[in-house]
Structures are given as C-alpha cells and as structure tokens.
C-alpha cells in the first residue's frame, strides 16, 4: 500500500508542475536560454577571428588519391590537381597553399613561399608528408608570424573539432548546465517542500494515512525527474547550439558520435549521478526550513557547491576526482568520447551519488519532521 502512496504523491506533484506554467517555463527555458546565449557568445568571439581559405595542390591524380585519407581529416583544406597555385594565392582566391611537386611540399602564404619541407621520393610518400606537415603544425608555425592578429588558418582535424566541442560542453557550458540544474532545484524544492508549510497545505497532506517519509519520497522523486529534465535540456541545447553556430563542424561531430553509440548510456549515467546529488543537497536544505525565504538563502550555498564541484578538474589533476559525481563530469565525458569510457569510474561515481541521495532522503525526512514540531 505504501508504494501506492508514493505513486499518488508523485502523480500529484507532477500534475502540479504541469499546471504551474511559470514553473514549467522556468524548468525548460532557463537551461535553453542560458546555454544557447553563451554558445552564441563563444561562437561570436571565434567569428571575429577570420579563417583563411586553404588548399593543397597536387601534381597528379595519383598523389591526390594517396593523400585523400589525410585530407579527409582536415576539411578546411581543399584538394586540387594541377591549376595555378601561385596565381590563386596572389589573387587572394586562396590564402594558404600547400603545393606538392615531385620532390617537396612547398608552403605558400599570401604569395610568399614560406618553406619547403620533406623530400618526396614518389607519390606514396605524399600522405605521410602531408600528415607530418599538418600534425607537426609546420604549416601553422610557418605562417603565424606573417599573419595579422585575430587571423588564423584552420588546421583543425576531426579530432580537433571533437576536442573543441568537448571543451565547450565540459567547460563553461558544462558549468552552466549544473548552475541551471541547481537553480531549478532551488526554486522547485523550496516550492514543493518548504512552501507546503507556508501555504498551510502541509497539514492536510500529513493527516493522510501516509507516512511523512513516503510523502517526501514521492516529492523527491518528482523533483529528481524535473532536475534531470533540466540537465537534459541543457545538454541538448549545448549540442543544438553547436549545430546552429558551428554548423560547418557539426557534421564531423555527428559522424564521430554515430560510429559507436556506447557513449549515450554513459552520459545519461553521469547526468543521473549529478541529478541525484543536486536533488539530495536541495531537498535537505528545503526540509530544514519552514520559510521559503530562509531556505532560498541557504540554497545559494548549495548552488555554489554544485557549480564549483564541476570545475574541480581544472584545479587539480588528482586521479580520485574521476570517482566523484559532478566533479567527474569533464574527465568522464572526454574519456567516453575518446573511446576510452571509464565505466568503473563512472559506475563508482553513480554509486556514490546513490549513497548521497539516500543520506539526503533520511536527513530530509528527519529535518522535515523536526520543523513540524
């Protein structure tokens, strides 16, 4: 019977959220607007840096065929056979040109020959030489002294594009996602738990033949779903923003992500861990007070705690960080996307978050009962 009570409370709480439009809007729009705006801001800064057109000129089809494997990884460099590279560069059609002849790769920038590198014996060497030119950042190093400030040549490989995306999702945007999750948790928990006493709706509920713990569990589970949704909206907005503002690079991300979908459940597990911890922190704070004003005041400490936790990996290289929920977010996501998802660390982080959640639940119900006295 008791599980039915939890279910009824959950249904009622969910219906309450659905009926309170301002709450629903806050839940979905906060992560959407903040993440979209910051993503736009980040891309705006990048767009202020003009990217130069670049190309690789091959002498024959054979060279281009062999080098195609390398060129695929550097989508900014278009490949041509024959043509007149020097004219193209001089006339400003192309800013940077790598010209492959029988013996060498010559690097041109604004019609200037900057360097010639790597002796080629035959066409089969082209791929390695080109790869060396890109990966060893020879091309970039050769040119950066010639370029005016705020100009760059995009030497990004597919891996680099992924890295940029990951840095964004685990850095500023990652922290923003946690911040919106925490701010939503603050207002929702204060409304759902502390608010019951303030609105004098608490007594009617407590008078029912359902224990306070079951009522609190029902409320907590719904809060958990809401916070999870808020985090999910944040992540999806981060991806959507990348698709909108960096659409030329997004196809590369999709291609890489589509290769192996094992990352999806691991990221959901990470988000779930963060949700459990956030729910536990804010439920405990909300349960300790009978005035939402006071609860909100103390909840700001919880907001700082959650947001700063996500930044811990930038302060320390300690290996233990990867086992802690929220703090392991950036490490885990990067390891997942590099195809080395550390299931043991993510799983441990999840178990720790379950323990924190259980502890939060016990503490919350004790505090809630205490404020009733």
């Amino acid at each position, binding site marked *: 019977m008791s599980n039915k009570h939890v279910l009824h409370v959950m249904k*009622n709480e969910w219906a309450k959220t659905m*009926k309170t439009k301002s709450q629903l809007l806050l839940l979905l729009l906060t992560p959407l607007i903040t993440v979209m705006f910051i993503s736009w801001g980040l891309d705006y800064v990048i767009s202020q840096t003009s990217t130069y057109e670049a190309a690789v000129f091959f002498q024959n089809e054979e060279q281009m065929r062999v080098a195609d494997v390398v060129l695929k990884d550097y989508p900014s460099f278009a490949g041509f056979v024959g043509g007149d590279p020097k004219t193209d560069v001089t006339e400003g059609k192309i800013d940077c040109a790598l010209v492959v002849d029988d013996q060498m790769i010559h690097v041109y920038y604004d019609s200037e020959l900057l360097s010639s590198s790597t002796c080629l014996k035959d066409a089969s060497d082209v791929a390695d030489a080109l790869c060396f030119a890109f990966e060893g950042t020879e091309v970039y190093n050769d040119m950066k002294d010639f370029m005016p400030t705020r100009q760059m040549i995009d030497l990004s490989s597919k891996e680099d594009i992924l890295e940029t995306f990951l840095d964004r999702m685990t850095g500023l945007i990652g922290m923003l996602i946690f911040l919106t999750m925490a701010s939503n948790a603050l207002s929702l928990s204060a409304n759902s738990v502390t608010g019951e006493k303030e*609105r004098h709706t608490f*007594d*009617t509920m407590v*008078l029912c033949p*359902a224990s306070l713990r079951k009522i609190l569990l029902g409320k907590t589970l719904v809060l958990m779903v809401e916070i999870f949704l808020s985090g999910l909206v944040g992540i999806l907005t981060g991806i959507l923003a990348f698709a909108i503002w960096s659409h030329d690079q997004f196809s590369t991300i999709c291609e890489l992500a589509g290769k192996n979908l094992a990352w999806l459940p691991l990221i959901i597990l990470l988000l779930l861990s963060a949700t459990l911890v956030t729910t536990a922190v804010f439920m405990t704070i909300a349960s300790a007070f009978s005035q939402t004003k006071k609860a909100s005041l103390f909840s700001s400490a919880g907001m700082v705690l959650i947001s700063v936790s996500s930044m811990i990996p930038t302060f320390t290289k300690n290996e233990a960080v990867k086992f802690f929920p929220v703090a392991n977010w950036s490490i885990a996501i990067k390891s997942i996307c590099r195809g080395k998802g550390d299931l043991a660390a993510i799983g441990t982080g999840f178990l720790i978050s379950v323990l924190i959640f259980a502890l939060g639940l016990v503490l919350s119900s004790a505090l809630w009962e205490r404020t*009733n*006295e």
Partner: protein
Amino acid sequence: MITIEHLKKTFKKNKVEAVKDVSLEVHNGEIFALLGPNGAGKTTTMRMLSTLLNPTSGKITYDGKDINEDMLAIRRRIAFLTNEIRLDGQFTPDELANYYGRLYEMSEEQIKKNKQELFDYFGITEFAKRRYETFSTGMKQKTSLAICLLHDPDTIIFDEPTNGLDILTQRLIEKYVVRLKEEGKCIILSTHILDLVSRLADRVGVIVDGRSVYCGNVSDMAASQNVETIDEAFVKLYEENHVEQNIITKK
C-alpha cells in the same frame, strides 16, 4: 471515545510550554466544545489529538488504543479542519477529492459517491472543475471541509471552523456538524463563540494556561460555577486559574 490523560507539550525550539496538563474525555455521538482564551493551548491540544504533533508526555487513546500504537490507522478515522488549512490552489475540488481519496486508500466508487454527496451538500458541484485558488474564502472553507470529510471519519476535530465566514456558510456548516453528531460521530469543536457552544455542544472542556480546568455538560457549566450563564462561568474559570507567566525563561 477519546481519552486524554495529563497531556503536555513543550516546544523545544521556542522554550514554550504550550500545554501543561490537559485531561479530557470525549464520547461518540456527542459534540464536545473546547473553550479557552487565546494562547491557552487549545490548538496545540487539537493538533496532538489529530496526530500532527507528538505530545511531550501524557496519553491519548482512541477507543482504548494508544495513538502511538498505530498512528496511520488512527489517521484513517479522523478529520482535522482549521480555518487556516488550505489546499493546493492549482487543483480543482474534483482533482483534490480524487487525490486525497486515493491517499486514504478509498476505492474509486467510494470516492465518487462521497464526493458527489459532499459537493452537493456544500454547493460545490457547479464549481467542481474550477481551480481552488479562484474561490472566495467561504467556498475555500467549504471545499476544505468536503475534502476533510471525504473518507467518512468517525472523529472530526474542528478548530474555529466558522471564523471569518458569512452567516449562511456558518449555518450550513453548523447544520452539517449536527448531522455528523446524529450519525454517531465524535466531534470536537474549538471556538470563541459561546453562543455556538450553547446551541450545539453537549459537553464542554475549558483550558486555561495549558491546563484543563473544567470538563462536563454544557447545561451544568453555569451551575457548577454558581453563575447564570456559560459566559460568566467561562470568565470565572479563567480568573480563578490564570497564571501570568507561562514562558520558561532560559537560565
């Protein structure tokens, strides 16, 4: 039958001894009025009776069963209504009745039947699909009453239920209280309106400064204090038993 023996409640947080020694007896099929000046401890006593507060010491029994033995089973049998109690404003009376009915583990048929009857009596039916927050004070109080009584409790505790209501709503509630009594239910009523006590109550208990100072028939109250009316009896009981200091000061 409800028996209260030497009930005591101290609020640790505020260091207030709200109820010092209350002993009363309430029988089935009667309206028992609980009287006392503001701050005497009536509401605290009623909150303990309704299981909302745990007594510091003393004993409450429902038909011989200690309230702490099976609190959840006791809650199925009681209803508590104060003029302060509110329901979630986003919901309609219909949704509220369904929700609370399910929490009381009532069958859907039972909910439907009781809901219909109570909504019809209190004139809520035509507002059943409107949000509670849009109601007037009187309509809110009538809805709260209907929801509280939905599970057909055998003990009903009213803490100043007609406060701030117009005369028509007051009469409607009074009539329903009498009907509940006739059905054999046990009704405890706290009020400051002594006229209401004379008209409705069978027995009365008086609390002064957290102590029960009188428990007996309404008709005997005046005579027991050698005065003409229950108003005079109440004032006399207060003057004889009131002690100025009731706050425990921190050492």
